[in-house]
C-alpha cells in the first residue's frame, strides 16, 4: 500500500543571492560550487551530473515522470544542474526554488533508509559549502513556508479500496486536519490518478526532523490500517464487483489498441489492486510498477526511441502494454 518514501531537504548557500535575486553569474556559481562539492565528496563517480543543456526535452519530462525532478525545475528560466545517483534513489536539483534541493527515495515505508541517506549527504555537502542558516529560523529557504528543517517527508500510498468504498475523503480529511498535505502522483498541483496519494508534512519549523517523520509515519500506518479494512470489506461483501472491475481492467490492457496515459495509469492501478488482493497472479507487482512508469508520455518515447504525436503515442502505448502482458503470461 505504501509504494515509496521520499525525503527532501532544501538548502541555500549563505553568500549567494537566492533565486529571486540571482543573476546568471550567481546561478553559474551555484552550479559550479555544487558540482565541485559533489566531486569532492565522491558522489560524481557513483552517479551522473547533468548540465542545463542536458536537461532539454524530452529528457526533462522523462526525469519528471520518474520523480527525479519537479515540474518547477523544468519550467524555471535559471541555469540548472542535476545530479542523479546511480540507483536513482538520490537526486539533487540545483537552482530550483532553492539553490539545492535533494531527495532520497526508498521503497515501501522506510524513513530510516531515506532520511538516513539524506542526512549523510547533507553532512558531506555541509563540509564543502557554507549553508544559509540562522539559529532562530533554521535553514534559510527562499520561501518562508520551508524554513526550519526545510524537510519534506512524504509517502506515496496506493489506496484503491478506500476509494472504492468512498471512505477516502473522510480518511484524507483526517490527515489534512493534523496539518499534513495530500497531493496527487506528481506532487504539488497535480491531480490524483490511479488512486495514488502523496502524504507529506506542511510545517517545517518548530518540529525536529524526527518529530516530523514520526507524524507522517503515524498517519501512514493509520491509512494502511484503514485500507486493509476496506479491502477485507470489499472481499467479503463485494467480491464479484471487485473481481469484475479488476479483470475488466486487465482485459482492456491486454486487448486495447489505443490507450491514453491516464487510462493506462488507472487500469494498471486497478490491476495492482487485483494483485495485492490475490485475485491476479499472472502479473507481478514489479511489472505493474515498471509499466506504470513506462506508459507516461516522455518515458514511452524514450523507450521506443521515437518522437511521437498524441495519437501515435496512444497506439504505441497500447501495443507496448499488450505485448508485455501477453509475453508475461506465456
Amino acid at each position: 500500500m505504501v509504494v515509496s518514501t521520499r525525503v527532501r531537504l532544501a538548502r541555500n548557500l549563505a553568500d549567494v543571492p537566492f533565486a529571486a535575486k540571482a543573476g546568471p553569474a550567481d546561478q553559474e556559481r551555484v552550479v559550479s560550487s555544487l558540482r565541485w562539492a559533489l566531486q569532492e565528496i565522491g558522489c560524481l563517480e557513483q552517479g551522473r551530473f547533468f548540465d542545463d543543456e542536458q536537461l532539454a526535452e524530452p529528457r526533462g519530462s522523462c526525469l519528471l515522470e520518474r520523480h527525479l525532478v519537479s515540474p518547477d525545475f523544468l519550467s524555471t528560466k535559471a541555469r540548472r544542474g542535476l545530479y542523479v545517483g546511480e540507483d536513482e534513489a538520490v537526486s539533487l536539483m540545483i537552482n530550483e526554488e532553492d539553490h539545492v534541493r535533494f531527495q532520497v527515495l526508498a521503497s515501501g515505508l522506510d524513513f530510516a533508509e531515506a532520511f538516513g541517506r539524506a542526512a549523510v549527504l547533507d553532512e558531506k555537502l555541509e563540509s564543502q559549502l557554507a549553508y544559509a542558516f540562522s539559529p532562530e529560523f533554521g535553514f534559510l529557504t527562499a520561501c518562508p513556508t520551508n524554513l526550519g528543517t526545510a524537510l519534506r517527508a512524504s509517502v506515496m500510498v496506493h489506496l484503491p479500496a478506500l476509494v472504492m468504498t468512498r471512505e477516502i475523503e473522510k480518511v484524507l480529511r483526517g490527515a489534512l486536519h493534523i496539518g499534513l498535505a495530500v497531493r496527487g502522483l506528481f506532487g504539488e498541483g497535480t491531480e490524483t490518478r490511479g488512486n495514488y496519494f502523496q502524504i507529506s508534512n506542511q510545517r517545517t519549523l518548530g518540529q525536529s526532523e524526527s518529530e516530523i517523520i514520526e507524524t507522517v509515519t503515524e498517519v501512514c500506518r493509520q491509512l494502511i490500517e484503514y485500507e486493509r479494512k476496506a479491502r477485507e470489506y470489499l472481499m467479503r461483501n463485494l467480491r464479484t464487483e471487485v473481481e469484475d472491475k479488476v479483470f475488466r481492467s486487465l482485459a482492456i490492457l491486454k486487448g486495447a489498441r489505443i490507450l491514453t496515459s491516464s487510462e493506462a495509469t488507472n487500469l494498471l492501478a486497478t490491476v495492482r489492486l487485483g494483485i495485492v488482493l490475490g485475485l491476479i497472479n499472472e502479473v507481478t507487482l514489479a511489472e505493474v510498477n515498471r509499466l506504470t512508469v513506462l506508459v507516461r508520455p516522455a518515458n514511452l518515447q524514450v523507450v521506443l526511441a521515437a518522437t511521437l504525436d498524441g495519437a501515435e503515442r496512444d497506439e504505441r502505448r497500447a501495443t507496448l502494454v499488450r505485448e508485455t502482458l501477453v509475453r508475461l503470461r506465456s
Partner: protein
Amino acid sequence: MAKSCDICKNREGALKVSQVDSDGRMTELWVCAECARQRGFTAVEELKADVADVIAELQSRVEDKDNALVCPDCRMTYAEFKRLGRVGCARCYEAFHDRLVPLVRRIHGAVQHVGRTTKSGRKRAQERLTLERLRTHLQQAIDGEDYERAAALRDQLRRAEDETDG
C-alpha cells in the same frame, strides 16, 4: 415638481433620508442641503467615496513603508517580498525580521527552529546564549547596585560582542 424639504418645509429637498424609529418603523424624509448639513446627514454616495479615500490613503502609506524596508545585501524591498512570496537572500531574514516573525508564526505555529543545525549555526547559537546570559547577569548586578561586578561583566560582554561580530 420637486418636493420641498420635510424639515424646514421651505427649501427644495435634495436628499432622501431614511429614518428608523424606536419601534423599528422606517420613514423616508426629503431634506434640503442646508438642513442635511445642520443635522449631520451624509449621502451614502459621499460616505462611500470618503471610505474609499481613507482606504487608498492607508494602503499607500503601507506601500510606502514596505518600499522603504530594503535588504542591504540584495536590495529586495519588503513590498517585493510580499508580491513574490520569496526572499532575495539569506540577509533578507534579518532585514525583514520583525515583519517576518508574525508571518512565520502563522505558517508554522512556531518561531524557533528545532532540529538539525549547521556547524557554524551551533557556534552562533552558543555565542548568542553566552551574550544573553552575560546581559542578564549585568542587569542583575546593576539592579543589585553591585557596580564593581557590573563593570567587570560589561567588559566581558563587550569582548564577547566583539568576537561575535568578528
